[in-house]
């Protein structure tokens, strides 16, 4: 603070030895990063993701940058979250996927877009079309009320993307998204690969910090 009469903070080299200065800078760097990420301490990984899944997810998302560049200050308020699925209750033709969001995601933020990515593989030499119904269920509801559903026609093996609607965005904002995948065709359930190594389904959420009132001095 140049306005105070104390010593200028940039002139510390006269009073700190190199090692103390280094320790101080490292502490400052750690504190600065944690503060800006709104974390009180570094996260402890409770559900580590395999490197294969991570690599695949990032490859899928790469190149999907938005075409229009946002204003500089607006871009600074945005971030993206990739949440990998936990598989819940499943049966022969349906699979339930759970996605957890917390911390910065809940409260004071707005989920702008939610994309669901999943991998499908048909058996070799099979040519068939599979209908997948994706159900968005109300979070933390014991009866799992349906809020919306999407019908997808899948006719090729590979990664598929589904843009989810406002109900899913609201669920992400509340910290928990539940999807249920229902196969409507006769295709064997095993054709839908879920959770295997690098083919784990995930949700990519584009999030923006909200509630910042801009005050302009005139």
């Amino acid at each position, binding site marked *: 603070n140049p306005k105070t009469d104390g010593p200028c903070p*940039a002139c510390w080299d006269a009073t700190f030895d190199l090692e103390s200065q280094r320790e101080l800078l490292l502490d400052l760097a750690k504190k600065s990063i944690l503060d800006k990420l709104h974390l009180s301490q570094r996260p402890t990984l409770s559900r580590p993701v395999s490197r294969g899944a991570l690599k695949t*997810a990032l490859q899928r998302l790469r190149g999907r940058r938005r075409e229009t560049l946002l204003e500089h200050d607006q871009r*600074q308020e945005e971030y993206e979250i990739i*949440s*990998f699925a936990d598989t819940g209750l499943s049966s022969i033709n349906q699979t339930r996927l759970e996605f957890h969001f917390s911390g910065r995601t809940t409260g004071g933020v707005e989920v702008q877009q939610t994309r669901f990515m999943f991998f499908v593989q048909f058996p070799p030499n099979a040519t068939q079309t599979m209908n997948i119904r994706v159900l968005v269920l109300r979070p933390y509801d014991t009866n799992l009320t349906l809020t919306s559903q999407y019908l997808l026609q899948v006719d090729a093996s590979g990664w598929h993307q589904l843009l989810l609607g406002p109900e899913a965005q609201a669920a992400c904002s509340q910290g928990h998204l539940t999807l249920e995948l229902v196969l409507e065709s006769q295709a064997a359930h095993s054709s839908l690969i879920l959770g295997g190594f690098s083919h784990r389904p995930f949700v990519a959420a584009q999030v923006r910090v909200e509630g910042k009132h801009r005050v302009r001095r005139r």
Partner: protein
Amino acid sequence: GINCQGASRMCCRQEFFVDFREIGWHDWIIQPEGYAMNFCTGQCPLHVAGMPGISASFHTAVLNLLKANAASSTAGGGSCCVPTSRRPLSLLYYDRDSNIVKTDIPDMVVEACGCS
């Protein structure tokens, strides 16, 4: 801005890189591998006050010296070597739920220093 080198004690930018592996953070920060924090250090004599990038020219230095001499009799107040340009730090990291978050933290990397 000027990068610190040699024995100069004038205001400059000192490079400082925090290696995430070294501080044990490489398990939760996926990218980048470290943080080029950098900082400003050095002295700011009054005649270079208010000059980002120190002395832009001989003439401006002389003018500032004159101003500083005039000001020093009326006000105390020193000049500080401070960041004049910063850029954001892009991070890809795991949050508490093991989700992957990509964000840009503004004003984290010091790019240039100057005298306030």
